[in-house]
């Protein structure tokens, strides 16, 4: 693959991965992935594969490690299939039209912009950051690592390359603020996404980076990039229910936010184009605020996890008589899964702990329950159900 860069990649774009730097010419020299499947562990690989798939008019799967791409078909024409990081261990695949993926991105050249990639390069949010930097001719800074890149390493790279644009989850930002300490960073744009941004964090970011534009974005793999809120307040303006930006329509049905978006993945909307986001919202004065998930999923550091699904695994462990997994609020990661375990009488606690660890070892770290406690019974609510919210 040689020649001119694709129209979504500005010729000035460069990406730094640890000590390696890639220009378009370097990307064009990378091998073309076989069978339309690329291991999406580095921006260079992903961007080169996108360009190759587009040139060939073929589908591309951005694989994220664990799952077996056997049986995946590229299909007709250039599409991009993303894998979600499922909490049950089985990733969901969703095929996107490339134009729709680019969605709200505008190819505005931003001279001297230096982006830090805090997301997985194979994730929807990571792709958005990479395509934004590529279109702007910016420098994209990333830290290579198999899956787990520490916030400390990201903070170090941010300082070293004096990044100007950082997009991350609220949980990332809480940890990043701690890792950064008092270090100066010439941030021009601070972006939050992937979880609901809370007001205390928005206030801390505004105080820490007074010269940066602060915005939180709302997007989902199913609905695509939806909107950005730039007024420094949590939630979004209630006025958008009548008149939403960027060609969107928004409505609340039974407490759940529904959207009609030109960027929604096809086949998921109802006859009139509406798509349920599964996000619970509350209208408070002139604001609409996010209030958790309809399906009971909780957000742990930007990863949606199911306490019920994890609990079913723990209940299947030898020596476990009963178990309850519940989410507790965390000032660091938003929520954290924890569990109370009732062991079968006479069974060694250390043995049960080892079994519990083995039963959750293949889950994403955010879905593994922490700070396990052993008890002689699980307290039930008045209705006789486990109280999922845990001890108050």
């Amino acid at each position: 693959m040689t020649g001119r860069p694709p129209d979504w990649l500005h010729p000035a774009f460069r990406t730094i991965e640890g000590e390696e730097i890639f220009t378009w010419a370097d990307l064009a020299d990378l091998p073309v992935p076989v069978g339309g499947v690329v291991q999406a562990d580095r921006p260079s690989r992903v961007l080169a594969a996108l360009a190759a798939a587009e040139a060939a008019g073929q589908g591309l799967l951005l694989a994220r490690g664990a799952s077996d791409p056997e049986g995946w078909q590229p299909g007709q024409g250039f599409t991009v299939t993303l894998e979600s990081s499922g909490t049950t261990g089985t990733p969901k695949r969703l095929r996107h039209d490339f134009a729709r993926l680019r969605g709200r991105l505008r190819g505005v050249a931003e001279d001297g912009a230096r982006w830090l990639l805090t997301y997985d390069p194979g994730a929807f949010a990571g792709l958005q950051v990479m395509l934004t930097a590529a279109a702007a001719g910016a420098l994209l800074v990333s830290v290579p690592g198999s899956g787990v890149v520490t916030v400390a390493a990201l903070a170090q790279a941010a300082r070293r390359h004096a990044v100007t644009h950082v997009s991350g989850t609220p949980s990332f930002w809480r940890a990043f603020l701690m890792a950064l300490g008092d270090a100066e960073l010439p941030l021009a744009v601070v972006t939050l996404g992937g979880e609901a941004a809370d007001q205390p964090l928005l206030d801390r970011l505004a105080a820490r980076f007074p010269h940066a534009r602060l915005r939180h974005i709302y997007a989902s793999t199913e609905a695509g990039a939806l909107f950005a809120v730039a007024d420094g307040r949590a939630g979004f303006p209630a006025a958008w229910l009548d008149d939403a930006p960027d060609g969107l329509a928004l409505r609340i049905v039974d407490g759940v936010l529904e959207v009609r978006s030109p960027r929604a993945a096809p086949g998921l909307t109802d006859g009139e184009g509406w798509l349920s986001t599964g996000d619970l919202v509350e209208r408070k004065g002139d604001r609409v605020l996010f209030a958790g998930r309809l399906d009971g999923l909780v957000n742990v550091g930007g990863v949606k996890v199911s306490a019920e699904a994890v609990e079913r695994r723990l209940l299947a462990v030898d020596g476990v008589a009963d178990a309850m997994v519940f989410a507790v609020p965390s000032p660091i990661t938003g929520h954290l899964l924890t569990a109370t375990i009732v062991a079968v009488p006479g069974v060694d606690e250390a043995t049960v702990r080892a079994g519990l660890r083995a039963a959750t070892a293949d889950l994403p770290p955010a879905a593994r329950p922490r700070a396990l406690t052993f008890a002689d019974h699980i307290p039930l609510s008045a209705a006789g159900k486990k109280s999922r919210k845990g001890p108050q």
Partner: protein
Amino acid sequence: MTNSIFALIAEELGRIAADKGEALPSLTADSRFLDGDLPIDSLDLATLLVVLEQRTGQDPFREGFRQFTTVGELAALYTVPV
């Protein structure tokens, strides 16, 4: 005096590190949590705060986030049990 809280943090952090097969370097009040000094990530730090609440009955973050970077700064957020 936050010595006993400091000891509690050292004990629990050691346990969290050991669960991951990591050894904790010797801890001082100036040890920084997330800048690479210690073999822990933000999920581990979140776990530490849950365990500290279980063991002290205190949640200094109930009313909102309070800034801390070092072990000493975290210890100072807890009042010493009598």
